[in-house]
């Protein structure tokens, strides 16, 4: 497996589990509304956060580390502002982080992204596990995780909600449309983690201080990661976005009834009767 053969730039962990977690910083996605009861809620401003599912990925990695020891390295690819999310990850308990940041990466679609992340992880030396989120809230493809596994040609288990490491193997519970599946793979392997499957721990103050001044976040250029730049960015992306059209939600705002409950309900039921949903 290529993954194991690459000459390690970083000293391999001799004991415990070495885990690489891939995380992306995304604009806060929740649909914001004005809530007079709570405090300040805004629709404006481009606050960003760790991709929600990636926080679950970090948490799963931390749980595995709590049990088996070892080291967790967070990896993100994006502009320098992404450092903020890596700081959060360090604040949660991740040991160190690498931000892959280079103009050459701008405009990458899932193909160069998985290539770049995969290659960079090999520079970390031996890793037992690579953990990604199931999908990002801004591009929501869910293809980067399997893409990384494909590049490295290591086992993948996706949509994982829980995982255990035992005897050099990973056993993971996978949530699928019709239920759950339990899968097994040998290490190293890649997992993608389902959003909401666990409760990510909050960053703590001392760990945040460490993130800020502990020299634990490195910024790598494409060259530092020894990437083939012709395979990166816009140029290296097979797909192009030819057009973006904004969709105003299929605005069908129809009749909204307000006032006395008895009346509003009766109006609604009449409408449903007219359209044949209820008889009588």
């Amino acid at each position, binding site marked *: 497996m290529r993954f194991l053969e690459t000459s390690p730039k970083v000293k391999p962990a001799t004991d415990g589990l070495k885990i690489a977690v891939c995380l992306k910083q995304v604009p806060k*996605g929740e*649909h914001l509304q004005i809530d007079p009861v709570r405090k300040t809620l805004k629709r404006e401003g481009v606050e960003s956060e760790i991709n929600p599912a990636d926080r679950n990925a970090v948490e799963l990695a931390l749980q595995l580390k709590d049990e088996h020891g070892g080291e967790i390295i967070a990896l993100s690819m994006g502009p320098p502002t992404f450092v903020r999310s890596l700081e959060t990850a360090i604040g949660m308990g991740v040991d160190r982080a690498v931000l892959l940041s280079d103009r050459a990466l701008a405009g990458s679609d*899932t*193909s160069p992204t998985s*290539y770049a992340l995969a290659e960079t992880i090999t520079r970390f030396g031996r890793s037992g596990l690579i953990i990604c989120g*199931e999908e990002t809230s*801004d591009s929501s*493809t*869910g*293809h980067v*995780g*399997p*893409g990384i*596994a*494909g*590049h490295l040609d290591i*086992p*993948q288990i*996706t949509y994982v909600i829980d995982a255990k490491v035992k005897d050099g193997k990973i056993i993971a519970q*996978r949530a*699928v*449309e*019709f*239920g*759950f*599946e*339990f*899968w*097994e*793979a040998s290490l190293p392997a890649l997992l*993608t983690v*389902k*959003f*909401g499957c666990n409760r990510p721990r909050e960053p703590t103050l001392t760990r945040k201080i460490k993130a800020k001044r502990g020299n634990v976040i490195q910024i790598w250029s494409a060259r530092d990661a020894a990437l083939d730049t012709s395979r990166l960015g816009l140029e290296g992306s*097979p*797909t*192009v976005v030819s057009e*973006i*059209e*904004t969709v105003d*939600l*299929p*605005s*069908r*705002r*129809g*009749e*909204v*009834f307000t006032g006395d*409950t*008895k009346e*509003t*309900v009766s109006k*609604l*039921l009449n*409408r*449903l009767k007219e359209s044949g*949903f*209820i008889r*009588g």
Partner: protein
Amino acid sequence: MAEKEYNGIMVFLEHRKNMLRNASIQLVGEGRRLADLLNIELSGALLGKGLVALAQEAIQYGLDKVHLVEHELLRDYAPRPYATALAELVDRRKPEALLFGATMNGREVAGRLHAYIHTGLAADCTAFDVTEDGYIEMIRPAFGGKSLAHILCKKTKPQMASARPNVFPAPEKDVNRKGEIVREMVQLTEKDVDTKCLSVVEYESEAEILSRAEIILSGGYGLKKKENFALLEELAELLHGVVGASRKVVDIGWFPRERQIGQTGKTVRPRLYFAIGISGAVQHLAGMERSEKIVAINSDPSSSIFEIADYGIVGNMLEVLPEMIRQLKEMQQEAGQSSS
């Protein structure tokens, strides 16, 4: 022209328990439309073991041809052997486009495959079109559904895309339709099977209920507590509907996960959808905005759910639902009396 080396559209046919999955059937329908527009062949890629009957059935939905890849090591689905076999098939048959249902397996195998064969992959498309110069325009929601991105893949072949389930209508089966079944050999060894499914816990019947339901009543955080779902159940019974839920209430354990509707839950398109105490976050809308008629019940008139509702009641669901149950019972009683 080197380009012409690639031809036809190929659809990855997913199956489970000896049945084609709905997402694949829907995709055959959409694939047919595109192939006809481009005047090219539509084929299916069917991987597994003992699947001749399924191949026939797939043709009846509108395929010209099925590439049947049968191998003992493909009997049970696993991402690596499937991606490996598909890579070999693509290399041999060179389809111009390769489409997957954006199911969990569909996405994971497509994601892996696009890294194997170094081509572009558009995820979770909700519409397709063809360009004047014969490419497929892959259209998908972006930025949480606030916009639609049109994606083209002109540099590499095949053009790959996954398509969101339950967006495209399933085609009618034509039992007289004939097509070719091409048996394909692939090289696989035990070492290719690097993950193993140990066991499956199913709740298929449960989940299917949602996709078949004509009327769905979904409850959200506005229900205030778990116990209030009883009101929804009661109403559902009166209306012959089934109950669904928003992610928030699923996350806090008020309702089972398999009934979650939205981007990370089920996509449904019932004839009538009730959103009760649901704010209308884009991620929820992604799963239900295609419903034929939408009714919103929410105490906050500025809730965005009203923007997509055909009918809405601004009110406290704790007052509205009991009143609705009361009036419905009354109507049914009257109806019962007049018919007897």
